[in-house]
């Protein structure tokens, strides 16, 4: 090996602590990059394989009931290439081990296996046999959750009747990669099930012979507009049969869930690594500037000996190169681990036939390129200045900046009031401006990551609290399959432990305003409803006696305001249209909830069946609770029962608990930034101040007293950085919120005082943790030698 490379290796070894700190920052950066992009690819790949395996539909149409003879007319609509009819109904499963009734969905499948759209992928057992009509294939996770064995029998309440089915197989399907009960965003595996039954049997039990209520199909190739137009045509064509909803794939719940996840990954895969690699480049720049400054004489000597500038630059560039390569190497390794863990996480959140964690050479190559690029940037900027000096210039000591007084010293009285150690700290901070600024930037970026983490955590809590402490105040919600007459309220109020009941009426239909239209469901609640309390910002919304209350998001997308009148055509009923006036526009947190007075809505529709959902309060002993459920389970009209406390718990477990892991990782990674930046700055400073430290030691100062000077310096830099990081983190969070929202849904992301204080708190913790290392270096400094040394 030639001599300069040997020098390089020894120099690297000597500054290994600092280098490791910098490499750690790069490792985290490239790790996030590789990990997230790989996960992105893994998911994207698994999803598209799954879609083609199942022949995922392009659109869904939910109707009340249409004869199969209409299918041909639908197929003739230009832009539609394939169509398939299904019967889909909500159901209640009777699981003996469960106290509460469990809801699910019955979906019809052809009795002979064929290559249909939204096909299932069998997991255990085999497809329907020709032996028995009452066979059911159930969703895999549901079967696992309740330990339902093949060959056992399962009781479903379908069309108001109890039917026993033979479980012959379990399956998964790309249509339900993300499965939750309707209207909920999270659920536990056993909470909601899918039950595939033979189509002809479904026709029989639902009285649907020669009819269906769910169409799925494929578009022939075409652009977005053509597809939208085709869907509208379907809507118009089938209007008289009562179209609840036409959904293209972009809006399908499971698809939406996974695509927004995938999109989020891509955003973070770009923005997180930039922060980390940027910080790494900055602190590397500080380190290399210092190293070049320190090796000034060596550079001068090499030049005097006849080394070319490029040879010397190449030598120093290699530091950056090695750091970049090591960072990318370990970063890729970390990235592989991250994507492995994320695959595991996504495998529980979504259901895939298989989700492999692959290695993507292109991503790793890119990680190397980026890491090396940032490292070289940092190095080159640091070294260039010294290398380009003339040799005689380089051999002279750099003209000391030490003689200049910092601006604070101008205010003599204040300055002289400071302790000499504080004076030292302040002089240091102002003299090494670049370093101070780099330290502040690193701390700001680190703190912004912490704030984003804490803010997300706070937001999730906030959303759950908002929903369960302010909007939904009932103990149970009972959703009915069809609207029932008000007498059902009296029945329910006699159930065990029930203290109060309130009706809710849902009417779904289409809003029309000019040529714009949107499928909307109106929620009718009592004027003094106590269990559904719409909120406007932080005030309760008073629902006026007539007219509807719409959220501002809807008002904006329609371009309407209070006082305007929209046309509303309910799905059911007799193609009648109503003029509804907008009574008020409110600020809603998420979703598109349209409210109206319960009586007003009843009057408008002149319906006798006017209860879609019953909300109730209860005070129950455990025994009463069991009785309550036993009674409820007998009700055939029930679509689902949810216990609000349980829902809240599920949400917490599903999201908040899982996010705790993510939060931990985010704080850990932010810690790496603080650590890297602090160690780098302090270790350099210790080298530079060797003489000062030695002098203080000679005077009898304890190492801790000297360490305190460094601690002060780091606290000042990092707390001011963290304070600057607060608004930065806040902006990042708002950016994420915008990234997450679409025109019918938004997730409000916010911070609270606690997350702000928490961020500063973490910054301080990191400073103290890093200080342990700094102090150790001060203790170990051979200060006796430092005094003898010639500068």
């Amino acid at each position, binding site marked *: 090996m030639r*001599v300069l490379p040997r*020098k390089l290796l020894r120099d690297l070894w000597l500054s290994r602590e600092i280098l490791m700190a910098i490499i750690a920052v790069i490792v985290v950066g490239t790790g996030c990059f590789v990990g997230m992009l790989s996960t992105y690819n893994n998911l994207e790949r698994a999803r598209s394989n799954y879609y083609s395996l199942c022949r995922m539909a392009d659109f869904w149409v939910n109707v009340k009931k249409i004869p199969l003879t209409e299918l041909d007319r639908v197929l003739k609509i230009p832009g539609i290439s394939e169509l398939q009819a299904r019967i889909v109904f909500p159901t209640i499963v009777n699981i003996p081990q469960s106290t509460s009734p469990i809801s699910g969905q019955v979906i019809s499948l052809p009795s002979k296996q064929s290559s249909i759209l939204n096909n299932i992928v069998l997991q255990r057992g085999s497809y329907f046999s020709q032996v028995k009509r009452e066979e059911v294939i159930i969703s895999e996770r549901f079967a696992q959750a309740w330990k339902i064995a093949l060959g056992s029998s399962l009781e479903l309440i379908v069309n108001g009747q109890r039917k026993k089915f033979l479980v012959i197989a379990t399956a998964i399907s790309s249509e339900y990669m993300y499965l939750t009960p309707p209207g909920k965003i999270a659920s536990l595996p056993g909470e909601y099930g899918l039950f595939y039954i033979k189509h002809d049997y479904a026709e029989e039990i639902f009285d649907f012979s020669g009819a269906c209520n769910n169409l799925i199909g494929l578009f022939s190739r075409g652009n977005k507009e053509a597809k939208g137009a085709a869907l509208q045509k379907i809507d118009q064509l089938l209007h008289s049969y009562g179209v609840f909803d036409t959904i293209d794939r972009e809006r399908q719940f499971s698809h939406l869930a996974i695509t927004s996840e995938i999109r989020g990954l891509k955003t973070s895969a770009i923005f997180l690594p930039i922060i980390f690699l940027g910080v790494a480049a900055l602190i590397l720049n500080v380190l290399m500037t210092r190293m070049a400054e320190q090796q000034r004489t060596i550079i001068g*000597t090499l*030049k005097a*000996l*006849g*080394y070319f500038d490029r*040879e010397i630059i190449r030598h120093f560039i290699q530091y950056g190169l090695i750091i970049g390569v090591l960072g990318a190497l370990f970063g890729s390794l970390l990235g592989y681990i991250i994507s492995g863990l994320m695959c595991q996480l996504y495998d529980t959140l979504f259901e895939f036939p298989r989700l492999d964690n692959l290695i993507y050479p292109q991503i790793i190559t890119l990680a190397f390129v980026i890491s090396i690029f940032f490292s070289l940037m940092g190095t080159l900027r640091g070294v260039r200045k010294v290398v380009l000096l003339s040799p*005689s210039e380089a051999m002279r000591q750099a003209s000391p900046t030490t003689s200049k007084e910092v601006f604070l010293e101008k205010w003599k009285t204040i300055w002289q009031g400071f302790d000499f150690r504080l004076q030292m700290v302040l002089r240091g901070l102002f003299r090494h401006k670049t370093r101070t600024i780099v330290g502040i930037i690193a701390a700001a970026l680190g703190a912004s990551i912490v704030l984003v983490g804490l803010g997300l955590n706070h937001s999730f809590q906030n959303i759950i609290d908002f929903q369960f402490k302010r909007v939904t105040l009932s103990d149970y919600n009972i959703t009915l399959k069809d609207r029932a007459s008000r007498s059902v309220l009296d029945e329910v109020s006699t159930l065990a432990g029930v203290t109060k009941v309130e009706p809710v009426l849902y009417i779904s239909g289409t809003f029309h305003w000019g040529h714009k239209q949107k499928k909307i469901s109106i929620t009718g609640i009592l004027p003094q409803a106590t269990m559904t309390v719409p909120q406007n910002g932080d005030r309760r919304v008073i629902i006026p006696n007539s007219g509807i209350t719409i959220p501002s998001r809807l008002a904006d997308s329609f371009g309407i305001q209070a006082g305007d009148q929209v046309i509303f055509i309910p799905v059911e009923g007799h193609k009648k249209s109503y003029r509804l006036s907008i009574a008020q526009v409110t600020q809603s947190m998420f979703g598109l909830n349209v409210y109206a007075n319960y009586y007003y809505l009843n009057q408008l529709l002149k319906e006798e069946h006017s209860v879609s959902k019953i909300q109730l309060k209860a005070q129950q002993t455990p025994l009463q609770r069991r009785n309550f459920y036993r009674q409820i389970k007998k009700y055939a009209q029930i679509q689902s029962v949810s216990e609000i406390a349980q829902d809240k718990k599920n949400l917490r477990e599903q999201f908040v608990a899982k996010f705790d892991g993510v939060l931990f990782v985010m704080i850990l990674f932010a810690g790496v930034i603080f650590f890297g930046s602090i160690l780098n700055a302090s270790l350099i400073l210790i080298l530079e101040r060797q003489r000062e430290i030695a002098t203080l030691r000679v005077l009898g100062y304890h190492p801790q007293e000297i360490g305190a000077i460094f601690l002060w310096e780091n606290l000042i830099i990092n707390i001011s950085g963290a304070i600057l990081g607060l608004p930065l983190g806040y902006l990042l969070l708002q950016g994420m919120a915008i990234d997450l929202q679409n025109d019918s849904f938004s997730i409000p992301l916010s911070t609270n005082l606690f997350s702000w204080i928490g961020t500063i708190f973490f910054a301080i913790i990191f400073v103290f943790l890093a200080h342990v290392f700094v102090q150790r270096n001060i203790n170990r400094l051979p200060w006796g030698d430092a005094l003898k040394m010639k500068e």
Partner: protein
Amino acid sequence: MNPTPEIKLQSVKKSYQMGEITVPVLKGIDLEIYPGEITVICGASGSGKSTLLNIVGGVDRPSAGEVWFEKTDLAQLKDQQLTEYRRSHVGFVFQFYNLISTLTARENVQVSTEIVSDPIPAEEALALVGLEDQLDYFPSQMSGGQQQRVAIARALAKRPRLMLCDEPTGALDAQTGKIVLSLLIRLNQELGNTIVIITHATPIAQLAHRIVSISSGRIAKVEVNQKRLSVEEISW
């Protein structure tokens, strides 16, 4: 006896810009350095000795004037060519040795053997300066005199035409200084290098073929030393 000089300086001026003011350091130097000779430059501190040496060694450029090495005027060379000149013809020895602390004696010499085509192998060069037993010592494990000898080995290993030594004994005690000086004289005798030595200590001048005195940026006197003394005969 009037051989062609190895280096010929004509009206060389050098001044430094210190903010607003221009500080003249060399104020018109005419000097000839002859091949195979030991030239000693002496003068008071701040008189411009190092500046002059740096110009001769191609480490610095004159503000005005010509510096002839064979048929080239160093003052006209591009940076790249000037580096070439230093690389193949000049060996520098500094007052504070300027060794690289993370490299051993051998490796420090290799730093210069690696950039020329026909060097004296590092081990041989170190043997020439009497350090054959300290090949793998790091600078911190050697005395000042030993370090300076490594620096000399580093300079001579390139087989340079010119050895330029800026106060090579400045940081050494007289005893060690003498060892270093006798080494330089031996090299001059055995290998025939042209050597320029800057010194503060006038007695050292007695070793030279030619003694150049500088005072405040001008050549005060150039004398050919008729009666060279040996290292043992001088003291300072």
